[in-house]
């Protein structure tokens, strides 16, 4: 179907609005001085080497961000897989309770969940340790792989399962030969969703880290009192790059419109 002139104009304007702050941040990273000016003054690439190599604060923060994002996404998938599988096999009260628990942190303002996790970890003695942060993000983002894996399980043709059962396959064999291969793209998508969001998350990590370590988003917020600097803009570019790369991979190997709930029958 053709899109009207107004439609194209509206989409174009939206694209400009969407890109504007991102482009401005990216350009500001080139500033030679210490302040964020646009257009950049005395353009240089020094900020990139500062962020990735010479300034230990940013290097450590980036390292923490990567560790938390990868491990918490893995944990989120580990939580989500059995939950999605139980729900799909037979939606009992127990499996519904599991799914409901996973959805809970997602349905409330994140600052409240962050405050609560802060209290809990200080009570249990995990406050300020990296593993507590990883578990917290794992719990916060488990809902994402739960959704993508559920979509994947629903897309399995029941005829395949019936055929396998008729030919005498046990549950384990069916799982290995039919269910697992068909849901791998959805599992990976869920992993990427959780990873990217964990990478960018701020408020929950703020309460859980209790200033004893910093991820990149925390470090940026901590430095905010002295104003934004071009080095932080390099962080922003890195994060945008990681997000685009992760979601492009999801789009390349999975069906992004379907994951986002588009109608199957139309192409």
């Amino acid at each position, binding site marked *: 179907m053709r899109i009207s002139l107004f439609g194209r104009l509206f989409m174009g304007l939206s694209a400009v609005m969407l890109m*504007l702050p991102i482009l401005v941040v990216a350009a500001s990273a080139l500033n030679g001085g210490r302040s964020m000016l646009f257009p950049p003054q005395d353009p240089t690439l020094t900020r990139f080497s500062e962020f990735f190599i010479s300034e230990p604060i940013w290097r450590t923060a980036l390292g923490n961000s990567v560790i938390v994002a990868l491990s918490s996404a893995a944990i989120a998938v580990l939580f989500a897989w059995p939950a999605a599988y139980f729900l799909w096999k037979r939606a009992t009260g127990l499996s519904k309770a599991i799914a409901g628990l996973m959805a809970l942190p997602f349905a409330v303002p994140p600052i409240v969940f962050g405050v609560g996790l802060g209290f809990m970890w200080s009570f249990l003695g995990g406050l300020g340790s990296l593993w507590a942060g990883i578990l917290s993000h794992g719990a916060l983002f488990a809902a994402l792989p739960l959704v993508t894996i559920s979509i994947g399980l629903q897309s399995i043709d029941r005829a395949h399962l019936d055929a396998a059962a008729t030919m005498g396959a046990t549950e384990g064999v069916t799982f290995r030969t039919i269910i697992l291969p068909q849901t791998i793209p959805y599992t990976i998508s869920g992993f990427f969703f959780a990873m990217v969001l964990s990478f960018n998350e701020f408020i929950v990590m703020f309460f859980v880290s209790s200033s004893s370590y910093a991820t990149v988003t925390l470090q940026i917020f901590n430095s905010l009192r002295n104003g934004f600097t071009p080095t932080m803009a390099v962080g922003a570019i890195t994060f945008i790059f990681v997000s685009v790369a992760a979601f492009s991979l999801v789009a390349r190997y999975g069906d992004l419109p379907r994951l986002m709930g*588009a109608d199957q029958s139309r192409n």
Partner: protein
Amino acid sequence: MSLSTAEDLPTPAPIVVREPSLWFKLGLVALLALLCLVPFLFVLTISFGHKIEGAGWAFGFEFSHYKRFFLGATWPETFQSLYIQRLGYSLFFAAIGAVIAVALAFPFTYFLTRMSRRAQTVWLVVLLSSLSLSEVFIVMGWDILLSARSGLPALLDGIGFTDLMKDLGWFQWFRDVGLASPRAFKFKTSGFATVLCMAYLVWPYAVILLYPALSRLDPALVEAARTMGARPGQVVRTVVLPSVRLPLFGSTLLLFVFLLGTYVTISVFADPSQHTLAVSIYDSVRGSTLNAPFGAAQSVILLITAGLFLIAGQKLSKAGGTA
């Protein structure tokens, strides 16, 4: 359809009846309850706790923190509504931000779903990347765009808009609504910048939330209306809008609840007199005032507010769905 009929068929009784997964399930429930539910119970418990001067808090059962929220710390001698005001600003900013985001996302999503599958995929990658972008980066971007030295005020100055407004005598109006200093435009801090940034923050979410409903909209409906001579605007008003009324309402509500907890945007762009509950929760728990039980009480109130809106929304949409 095929799924439900397959489930309705009588399934042959399994030969081996074993339930090894029950313990596993219970373990998973326990673990998830610890990570997803217990934090909220801590917030609830501590909100009744007792503040220890300079040390932290102890378990207890007192309503002083709730009293302080609704009536002020010194009630009944004096009455203070500072924290109710904060809650009011939370609701105010979140509502405007959510409505603007959904209003702008609706036409965009409608056009998006009319594009080719390939173009949709490219757009979805862009939208998801923007959606997951940390609030601190978005605030950073708008901070530069609205800053006096190199942002919109400088641009307005450069193209002569500031002088034009001064010559026309309209500049005073901008000063009155808090968007200008005596000499130039100034957007930090202002309600305008806050709402702009909040709407920007959730706009990609709004598109993603509306996307399933609009993409499942039968194109034949639109075509039929067009064939019968309805203008595009009429089609949107009489065919498209009514059929996605519930998703529109639902996404506005979800984004509203999400925005209730915005912290970075408010702390950077909103005037201190218009700071929201999220900022004062932060101040109580980790910031300047350090009063964990009071912070917890404020969190509970924010949580209850969010819950009430979600429940009311569900009731309304059920009523709307059957009507």
